[in-house]
């Protein structure tokens, strides 16, 4: 039961992303062709509200359920990983029109072929873990 609340959060997120059409590859193609504000609106409004929420937690105005100030970790300054990894991720995002959250939403909505997509993504993750030491970070 302790974990059930996370399922509720995920449910709202998945439901919302479906209704916002963020799971549609056609919306992703539209975004990368700069033909509509829709996807940028979703991301930008999410970030703006996210900044307010994050600041409330950071300043300790809102405490977590454990009664403490949420510990935020600063991201490391390994620039190559963000540039190279980000570009590779972006290519995958545009190729299938699906990012790592949306693949679960699509899988659940009945497109069972996404089991193969998730399997491939696990393989990609494994490949990164295996070759991590030789990759520039």
């Amino acid at each position, binding site marked *: 039961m302790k*974990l059930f609340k*996370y399922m509720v959060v*995920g*449910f*709202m*997120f*998945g439901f919302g*992303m*479906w*209704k*916002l*059409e963020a799971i549609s590859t056609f*919306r992703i*193609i539209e975004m*990368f*062709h700069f*033909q509509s*504000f829709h996807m*940028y609106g*979703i991301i930008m*409004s*999410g*970030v703006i*509200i*996210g900044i307010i929420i994050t600041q409330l937690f950071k300043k300790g105005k809102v405490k*977590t359920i454990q009664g*403490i100030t*949420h510990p935020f970790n600063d991201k*490391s300054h390994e*620039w190559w990983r*963000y540039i*190279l*990894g*980000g*570009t*590779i*991720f972006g*290519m*995958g995002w*545009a*190729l*299938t029109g699906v*990012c*790592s*959250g949306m*693949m*679960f*939403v699509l899988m*659940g*909505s009945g*497109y*069972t*072929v996404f089991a*193969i997509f*998730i399997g*491939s*993504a696990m393989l*990609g*993750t494994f490949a990164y873990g*295996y070759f991590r030491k030789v990759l520039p970070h």
Partner: protein
Amino acid sequence: MYEILEQIHAFISQPWPWWMGGITIGTTLFLLLYFGKDFGLSANLRTMCAADGAGDYADFFDFDWKKQGWNLMVALGAMFGGYIAANYFGGDGMAHVSQATVDTLNNIAEENLLTISTVPLIPGKDVIHNNIPAFWNLYSWGSLFTLRGLIIIVGGGFLIGFGARYAGGCTSGHAISGLADLQIPSLVAVIGFFTGGLIMTWLILPHILRIAF
């Protein structure tokens, strides 16, 4: 009473405007931070690898993956959310893209297959959309037996999994959580996402989509 429920159903079923993204993402982020967690869905891929015993091959996967169970539940919840939205609140099941995008899609297909009222939300024939032109039938098991479908599903999955871990996060981890925390590394990662996305969309994807077998 029944009429009111029907009205609520119809209200939710219509396509949502973009600003609902702020509310959906904001609520998700708020609740996860409130529970003392961080929002980032691609971390689940690492957890799933570790749960399958990948720790024997690379110490990157040698961590206490059971502590990540909460994030797997978020993913499971997202699956349910997709199921309910698609089957009970699907509305007309169309992607309400702009006319310019319809023209772009027809240009890629080199055929006028779609009009503004016939672009399906999901390009897959198996489940909901029976009328989708064969060219755009990408997300189906049948598609997996074509080179085009194989590249898009297996290749795309691999790039997503590899890139997300390499960059240390995905759209939710960097573009939402990271940018919301005003992290410069996340901004660099997001610029990377768009660089890769633009290269793929403009230079590579049209050629992959036109593979006929």
